[in-house]
Each structure stands twice: as structure tokens, then as C-alpha cells.
């Protein structure tokens, strides 16, 4: 084990997987010489050369479509999209190409590519550089979507994503890159996709979150503990396919649920979580599910305005108290 930053854990995963499989290559804007604007690919161009680590023009739509078809024909592309806010430019390739052909041509082709991107707000990047569009991606059949919060999961899940036969969207958060944690050094430690993790166990209420919202949920659990409330924090880790057994097990224990996502509320990822819990855990619930999400409006720039919209620990704790009241 070693202590690593989240960005370093991703870098290690990329280096190891590129070293073990010559079919893996990476492309994206400013990822080569500069090492990526969040430094995730630092040093990789020197190690693997300009053929396998490619700086690209600003061409998200074509890049994503090319990742899909390159994956169909024998490579394992990793595409970095600098901000999740640019994912709408990638949508046709995901919705009308990757999703569709994975089904229609099943048995003839596989589409093993990874699209890495990062979202989230809190640092004044404004309405076009701070969104969480998880739900846009998790809505698409045939595509996996993961959003790990710890450096260990970042590494283990990126490795699993690169080896996965399906398209995987790998969601990072700009405020997680510098967070530290223990990470396995061994090359064969993979964290399976599709499995949630109990971040904090508790018996009174379940809080379901992913990515940076897990950090906020953990802080909320500390606030609630002061009032004698034992909150269980479930780190979903994978948004699609969703780990239903983990959700059921937690609610069977706590009978209350708060669902959290940094994206918008209406038709949001929180809506899906809430509906899934209603569908599968209704008999175990003692109160309606509470949603904590971004208000349904663009993200403002000015500090007091941005702070008012981003979901945080106190809003999560408040929702938990309301649910238990």
C-alpha cells in the first residue's frame, strides 16, 4: 500500500494498463505534453510515445465517435473529455452509436472504451464548467457509469473499466484530484464495477451518494452523530448498473433513505434512486425518500450564489432529520 493523491492513483492505473496491454491508448485535449489539465496523464507521453498518448484538436463530437469505432476494431481507447459540461457534445456517439451497436451487433463486436471526464462545482468555474451530468450518461442502455470517491477505488475501478468489454464512462470530480488515501501498489488489484461500498455503517438512516457527495455525506453523518442519529453512508461507486442488493440491505436495516447527487433534481440521478427504492424497498420504508440535489437552475459564478446551490453536508443532514422527524 502507498498513500497517493486521487490523480496519482488514476495515473498509476493508466500506466499499468498501458504497460500490460498494447491495445490500450489514450487521446484527448492537452493530455500529452502537458499531462492533462488535472495532471492525470503526467509523464505518460514520455513513457508510451506520441502514438499511444495523443494530443487532439478540440473536437469532442468526432473524438467520441472515433473512440467507439476504434474500440469496435481491436483497440481499447481511453478518451479524456476535459469537463463533464462538454459531454453533451459527445452524446450522439454514446446514445446512437455505442449503445445501439452493442446490442444490434452483439456477438460480432465489442466496444471496450473508457470515456474519462470530470465535473462538479464549488470553485467559481461558472455555469459552463461546473455541472454534474451523471444522469445524462446513466440514462443510456449498454453503457456503464462509475463515479468513485477514494483514490483506491479510482485506481482499481479505472483498471477494471479499461478491461471491461463494454463502454464505461468514468466520472471524476475536480475537487477530488488532490485528496489522498491508501492505494494498492499491486498491478492485479481491481475493484469490480457494479458494487457499492458501505462507507460508514449505521442503523437509523441510509444516505446514498457517489463521487464528492460521499465526502459531504460522511460529514453529514458526523453532524447527525452529535444528535445521536446513526447514519449509514453508502458509496454507490457505480451509477449504472446500480448495486440493488446493497441498497436493499441498507434500507432493510435503517428503514429511511436520503439520496444525494450533485446534478439537478428534476429527472435527476436522485429521481432514479428514489424511484428504484420505491420499486424495491417500499415495504421496508418508514418514511418517504428525501432527495438532495442541485436546484433546477444553471450554476451561478459569484461565491455566495454558487455556495447556495451546491449540495453540502448541512443540507444532507437537514434532509435526514426531516426524514426521521
Amino acid at each position, binding site marked *: 500500500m502507498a498513500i497517493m493523491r486521487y490523480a496519482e492513483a488514476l495515473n498509476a492505473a493508466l500506466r499499468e494498463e498501458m504497460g500490460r496491454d498494447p491495445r490500450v491508448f489514450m487521446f484527448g485535449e492537452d493530455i500529452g505534453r502537458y499531462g492533462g489539465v488535472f495532471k492525470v496523464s503526467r509523464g505518460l507521453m514520455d513513457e508510451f510515445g506520441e502514438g499511444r498518448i495523443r494530443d487532439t484538436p478540440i473536437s469532442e463530437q468526432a473524438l467520441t465517435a472515433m473512440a467507439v469505432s476504434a474500440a469496435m476494431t481491436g483497440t481499447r481507447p481511453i478518451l479524456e473529455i476535459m469537463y463533464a459540461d462538454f459531454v453533451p457534445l459527445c452524446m450522439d456517439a454514446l446514445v446512437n452509436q455505442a449503445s445501439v451497436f452493442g446490442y444490434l451487433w452483439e456477438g460480432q463486436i465489442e466496444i471496450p472504451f473508457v470515456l474519462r471526464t470530470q465535473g462538479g462545482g464549488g470553485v467559481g468555474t461558472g455555469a459552463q*464548467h461546473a455541472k454534474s451530468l451523471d444522469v445524462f450518461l446513466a440514462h443510456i442502455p449498454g453503457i456503464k457509469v462509475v463515479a468513485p470517491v477514494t483514490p483506491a477505488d479510482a485506481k482499481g475501478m479505472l483498471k477494471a473499466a479499461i478491461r471491461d468489454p463494454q463502454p464505461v464512462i468514468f466520472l471524476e470530480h475536480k475537487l477530488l484530484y488532490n485528496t489522498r488515501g491508501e492505494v494498492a501498489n499491486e498491478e492485479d488489484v481491481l475493484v469490480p464495477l457494479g458494487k457499492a461500498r458501505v462507507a460508514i455503517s449505521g442503523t437509523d438512516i441510509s444516505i446514498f451518494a457517489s463521487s464528492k457527495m460521499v465526502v459531504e455525506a460522511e460529514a453529514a453523518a458526523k453532524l447527525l452523530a452529535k444528535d445521536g442519529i446513526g447514519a449509514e453512508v453508502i458509496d454507490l461507486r457505480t451509477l449504472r448498473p446500480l448495486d440493488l442488493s446493497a441498497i436493499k440491505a441498507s434500507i432493510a436495516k435503517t428503514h429511511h433513505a436520503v439520496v444525494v447527487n450533485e446534478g439537478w433534481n428534476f429527472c435527476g440521478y436522485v429521481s432514479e434512486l428514489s424511484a428504484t427504492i420505491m420499486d424495491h424497498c417500499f415495504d421496508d420504508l418508514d418514511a418517504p425518500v428525501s432527495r438532495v440535489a442541485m436546484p433546477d437552475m444553471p450554476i451561478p459564478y*459569484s461565491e455566495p450564489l454558487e455556495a447556495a446551490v451546491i449540495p453540502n453536508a448541512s443540507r444532507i443532514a437537514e434532509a435526514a432529520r426531516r426524514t426521521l422527524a
Partner: protein
Amino acid sequence: MQNAPSIEEQMEIHRRMILTRRLEEILGGLAKDGKTRGPLHRCDGQEAVGVAGCMALRANDYVCTTHRGHHVYVGKGMDPRRIVAEIMGRETGYCRGRGGHMLLGDASTGMIGGNAIVGAGIPAAAGMALSIQVMKEDRVAMAVFGDGAAQTGIAHEAMNMAGLWKLPVIFLLENNQYGLTVRQEVQSPVEDLFIRAAGYGMPGLKVDGNDVVAVYQAVAEAAARARRNDGPTLIEAKTYRMQGFSTSDMGGYQSEAEMAPWRDRDPIRLSAETLSKSIGSEAVAEIAEAAEVEIQAAFALALADPFPVFEFHRPSGAYTEV
């Protein structure tokens, strides 16, 4: 010279370029002291493109710019105090603190607006030109965009339609040699991007982007053409980005050897030299002094302005309840 700026216009271009440069320098200082939020994209060295380009338009013409648009904001005649207030997140800013430095909009000067989705301003200007054509108005629209933006798919789609329908639009490509951190040759197999105009049936030309007179003339000629219903023009202004990509840029990829010749060709210095010949160096110095007073006042006022109070944006809401 056809379509050349008058002496008065050249003086005003000079003044606005100094305002822009000092805006960038003071913001840079505030950013170093941790007093700004988010990245700032400075346009030092590129002032001639945005300022002279906008000065060649009329007040009611539209302009769209990018994440690096301070010269366009000032060039189109926006108030520096309210620009600074927006960048500092204040209620008195052009978007009441909602937008920040990349997303300013001011419908009163036709500057709609800054845009941080690379390439988005190109079809935006084409759409404004479409509106002008449909409404038979005496106006033009201009997109100021980068060499990086020129590589987007949407640039091709928008320019094709602009050529096809002879839209009254000017594509002012501000080639500062870099995308974010990568040089233009990593993004395009050809050095001159204006040659693409041929594929859209519009004139394409290259100008010295550090020469205010050259930029002004090219845009004025393109605007006249658009007003005659002769369609769009692609102008590539060659310039250079002196201060890196943004204040959060770690740098290291622009060498001193590469930058030095451009420093010698500073657009403000060149403009001062040209102007001195006609109005004398004292009058040129007075322009700079007055601009300094104005920019200092803009910062002093804006920094004393209040922050906005959060309100939910009702039109964005997802429910009605009667």
C-alpha cells in the same frame, strides 16, 4: 487607405487597448493574491484584435466572443467598472455576478456574449446573422474565436451555412498560436486557417493581428460586404498569447525565445508609435494617463460594490403549482 480608422478612432482604439491591458494586469495581481475566483484568461498581446475589430463595427452590430474576451468587452464599448464588478462576482456586474469573466453579456452594446464552450460563438454569430437577414436589418454579426475553436465541427457547419445563405457575418479568427497548451501545428495540418474560406465560397484573408489599422480595415471591409448582402468573410488575425492560457495554467510550454519577438511587436507599443507620428508623443501619453485614472476608478468602485443575494431562478424551475 480604404476603410482605415480616422485619427479619432485610432485614439479611441489606443485608449481601449490600454484599458484592456491594465484590466488584465490588475486582475493578474489580484489573482496572485488569491483575491479572484476561478481561472482568468488574459488577452495581453491580443488587444488589437478584439478592440480594433469591434471598433470597426457599429454600436448596434452583434459580437460573440470566447472565454478570453476582455478586449472584445472593452472594444464594444462596455463599462470597465461593470466588467470588473462581474469578474469580482458583484451585484453591479453585467450579469449580477451570475456569469463571471467568461460569460459576460451586454445586449445594450450588442455583445452577446462571452462563451466558454469552445466553438459555440461561431454558430451563435451565424444565427444572429440569420436573424438580421430574416428581419432585413442593417446590421452585421461577428464571431471572434480562437485557432483552437476553428478545429471544432460546429465551425465547419456554421461557416458552410453562412456561405450558402450569404449571411451578414464576419468570422474573426484570432490565431494566438495555441489551443490550451498545445501549439497550432498539433491541432491542424495547415498553418494558415483562412484558406478554408474557399470551401465555403467566402473571401478569406490573413492580417497582422497586432496592427490595429490592419485589423480595423479588414473588419470594416468585411462589414461593408455583409451590409451589401454579399455574405460572410473569414479573417485570420495572426497574434500571440503573452500570458499563458489562464491564471491556473502551470505554464512551461511557451519558450522565451518564442515570446521575445512578439514582445517586441506589442500591439499597444506599435499603436503608440503610429499615433505619435500624427498627434505627437505627448498626446499619446495623455491617453495612457487618462486610461489609468479610469481603470483605477473602475477597480475601486467595483471592489466596494456589494455581493448579490441568492434567489432561485423561477424560469428554470421544473414545476407549476396553482
